[in-house]
């Protein structure tokens, strides 16, 4: 993509902004029109839209990682998180909005993985926007039928004795996986533990990183 002239001026003399220098598409035209009409009708304001974008940009897997790390070191919080994921996350200070969260925990015998076969439901208030692969036909179609093959594509090969528990986000709940805590991390503070918790480990397509990785 032509990202090599952001500091230059457009033919009409306006400075380019990020991603603004592509030909206008029909759907971008529609976005601009809808946004302008909503502002003119008093439904929203430019400032409110900007604030919402900032709020979404501020959400990232680091939020979920902080929740997981605390669950690893704080048994009472872990119990709260498993009992009511939204309330526990909110108690940590995260803006869960209307999201209703269920946390599912990996153990020595159980590996959990999350999918939404009907659309692409995702715990965005805690993890940010979903990766493109999560929304793909391949992931949505195959994960409920051949989760082990899908996991293998992500580099996760589970021992034979483990059971895979697939969660299809079909209705009102959103899901986060509490990955298993890696050994060799005894005594680590939460902030260090959180660096081991990847986005994919909270979807179930990955494991927590090992301490020396």
């Amino acid at each position, binding site marked *: 993509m032509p990202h090599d002239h952001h500091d230059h001026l457009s033919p009409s003399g306006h400075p380019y902004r990020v991603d603004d220098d592509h030909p206008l598409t029909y759907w971008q035209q529609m976005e601009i029109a809808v946004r302008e009409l909503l502002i003119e009708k008093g439904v929203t304001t430019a400032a409110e839209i900007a604030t919402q974008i900032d709020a979404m940009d501020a959400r990232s897997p680091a939020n979920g990682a902080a929740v997981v790390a605390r669950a690893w070191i704080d048994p009472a919080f872990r119990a709260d998180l498993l009992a009511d994921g939204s309330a526990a996350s909110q108690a940590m200070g995260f803006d869960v909005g209307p999201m209703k969260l269920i946390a599912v925990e990996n153990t020595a015998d159980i590996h959990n993985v999350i999918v939404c076969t009907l659309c692409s439901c995702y715990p965005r208030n805690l993890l940010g926007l979903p990766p493109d692969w999560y929304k793909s036909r391949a992931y949505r179609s195959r994960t*409920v039928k051949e989760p082990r093959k899908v996991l293998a594509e992500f580099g996760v090969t589970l021992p034979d004795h483990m059971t895979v528990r*697939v969660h299809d986000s079909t*209705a009102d709940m959103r899901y986060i996986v509490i990955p298993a805590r890696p050994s060799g991390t005894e005594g680590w503070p939460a902030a260090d533990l959180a660096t081991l918790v990847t986005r994919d480990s909270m979807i179930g397509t990955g494991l927590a990183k090992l301490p020396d990785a």
Partner: protein
Amino acid sequence: MVERTYMRVRADMPPGHVRTPAYLRGKTGWVERTLGPFPNPEALAYRQPAEPHPVMRLRFTMAEVWGADAERPTDTIDAEIYAHWLEQAEPPYAP
């Protein structure tokens, strides 16, 4: 062993917006937990007043869902199903 409550997902195939995946219709699972009630999405989608419905989180074995095609018969799938899609059922196999 905790006694399981088994439910069968109705095998209906209406057109329109529903949140019951086709691959689970006609399949029997056990109640993992009960949620809600939540407003019926089949009404919300068409801007109609939506009655609250209980929602069951059911757990299905891969054997029940995919039969002989199952990748690993004892692996499981959990899904949230609105109560109006569910009927009481007998265990599909020895639990």
